[in-house]
């Protein structure tokens, strides 16, 4: 299953003199574009007004996009590993931009269902393939700092919404929010993202076989990873470690969505007093903006820290401090606004960091060989959380609102559930051990290691 010509792995093996620092921008070109899916909410009101889409209908392109992301990452993960990052980035760009073009056509003819198919399904395939496309390549270029390397790319996915939200709003101001205006906006986004992502397709390179950065050769051994031989994706999913990590990711994401899903209403319920309604709306928008920044920066900062502290310890921090954070929100309620803000910033930074640190955690457990494909399968946890989180938060909050509860008490039960989920995830993280190879393979590996040590000592 090799791709041919321009897209093949053979064509993108780096020449002597190629800098590994050119690979993160290639990854960011893809992730900054596909991360725009998180800014989908800016289209909800125009779709409601122009196409008469209900709240549920106008949310479906995003929901489908996230669900298809997880499914396509799982289904195409092995193909991405075998065909290489340029093929994957090209397919991702084609699907994502085609999805936007289909959405443009659908908006022009006023068909909401076709927007869901275009943006959510076709675009969602691009999201899944694009999300995993640079992961294993980055870790091969940065064996000394895999957490930082994948943190860069996955920060880009968070950062994509920061760009797309104001930009797409500006496009709708220029083109209008009638059917033609929405069509022009989707079309412009598809065209610009096609150019933007193409740079990533052209720039990405694979390191030559047996290549190691100078810092690894001269200063320190590679960070320890899987005992024994690297695992294939099919082998990895048969281990308890994979499923324990699946639960860790799923519940960490669910907990983050607990705040992210209703950020503006949560702020208004906790701090309803403001000089005017406009001031309260602006403050809530500022709260949402601050959480977005925390989500994005947490990805690079905490993931980079994991290279020094270790992946398991970082997840202890995300999950343990996260559970304490939700407890503080339940107990302290709105007694202190600075405390509320600090806790929410930490919770959202842990949410983003959970995504960014997991590829390096997988490398530690299962090695390099098919880490992209294994990562793809793990992302089904994200799809599950994408449904689970909003259901928990919205169902409970809506129920409390219907019961006439006001203020922070509306969120007491949903936050309590988040504490329980985080504690379960913390227990799962504690149970994760580096998988041991079969006895025969272990003996062979030990023999290889002994031979290597002897050779080094003799040399």
């Amino acid at each position: 299953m090799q791709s041919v010509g321009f897209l093949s792995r053979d064509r993108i093996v780096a020449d002597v003199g190629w800098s590994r620092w050119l690979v993160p921008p290639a990854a960011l070109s893809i992730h900054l574009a596909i991360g725009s899916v998180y800014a989908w909410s800016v289209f909800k009101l125009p779709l409601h007004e122009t196409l008469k889409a209900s709240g549920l209908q106008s949310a479906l392109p995003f929901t489908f996009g996230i669900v298809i992301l997880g499914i396509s990452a799982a289904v195409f993960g092995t193909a991405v590993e075998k065909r290489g990052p340029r093929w994957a980035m090209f397919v991702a760009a084609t699907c994502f931009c085609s999805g936007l073009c289909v959405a443009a056509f659908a908006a022009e003819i006023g068909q909401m269902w076709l927007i869901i198919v275009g943006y959510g399904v076709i675009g969602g395939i691009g999201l899944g393939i694009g999300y995993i496309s640079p992961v294993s390549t980055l870790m091969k270029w940065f064996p000394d700092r895999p957490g930082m390397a994948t943190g860069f790319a996955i920060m880009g996915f968070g950062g994509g919404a920061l760009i797309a939200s104001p930009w797409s709003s500006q496009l709708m101001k220029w083109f209008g929010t009638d059917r033609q205006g929405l069509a022009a906006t989707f079309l412009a986004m598809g065209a610009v993202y096609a150019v933007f992502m193409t740079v990533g397709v052209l720039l990405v390179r694979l390191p030559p076989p047996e290549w190691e950065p100078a810092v690894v050769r001269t200063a320190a051994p590679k960070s320890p990873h899987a005992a024994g031989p690297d695992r294939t994706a099919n082998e990895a999913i048969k281990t308890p470690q994979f499923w324990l990590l699946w639960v860790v990711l799923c519940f960490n994401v669910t907990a983050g969505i607990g705040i992210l899903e209703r950020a503006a209403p949560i702020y208004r319920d906790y701090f309803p007093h403001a000089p005017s309604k406009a001031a309260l709306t602006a403050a809530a928008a500022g709260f949402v903006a601050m959480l977005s920044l925390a989500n994005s920066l947490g990805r690079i900062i905490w993931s980079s820290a994991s290279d020094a502290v270790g992946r398991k310890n970082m997840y202890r921090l995300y999950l343990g401090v996260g559970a304490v954070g939700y407890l503080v929100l339940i107990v302290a309620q709105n007694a202190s606004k600075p405390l509320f803000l600090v806790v929410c910033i930490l919770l959202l930074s842990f949410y983003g960091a959970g995504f960014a640190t997991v590829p390096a955690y997988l490398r530690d457990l299962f090695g390099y060989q098919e880490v992209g494909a294994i990562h793809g399968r793990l992302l089904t946890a994200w799809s599950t959380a994408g449904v689970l989180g909003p259901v928990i938060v919205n169902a409970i909050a809506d129920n409390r609102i219907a019961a006439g509860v006001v203020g922070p008490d509306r969120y007491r039960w949903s936050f309590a559930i988040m504490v329980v989920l985080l504690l379960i995830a913390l227990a799962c993280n504690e149970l994760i051990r580096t998988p041991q190879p079969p006895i025969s393979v272990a003996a062979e590996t030990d023999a290889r290691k002994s031979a290597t040590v002897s050779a080094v000592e003799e040399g």
Partner: protein
Amino acid sequence: MSEPSSPSNKVLGVLSWLWVGVPFTYGVYELAVKIPALFAN
């Protein structure tokens, strides 16, 4: 191979980081201007 070793490689490095850095900075700026309202009341 780990660091840019030629002038053209360095130029490519600068351009590629600008390519992703400029839009990201725009996004962060647009976001940062909304945050002061959070502390206004």
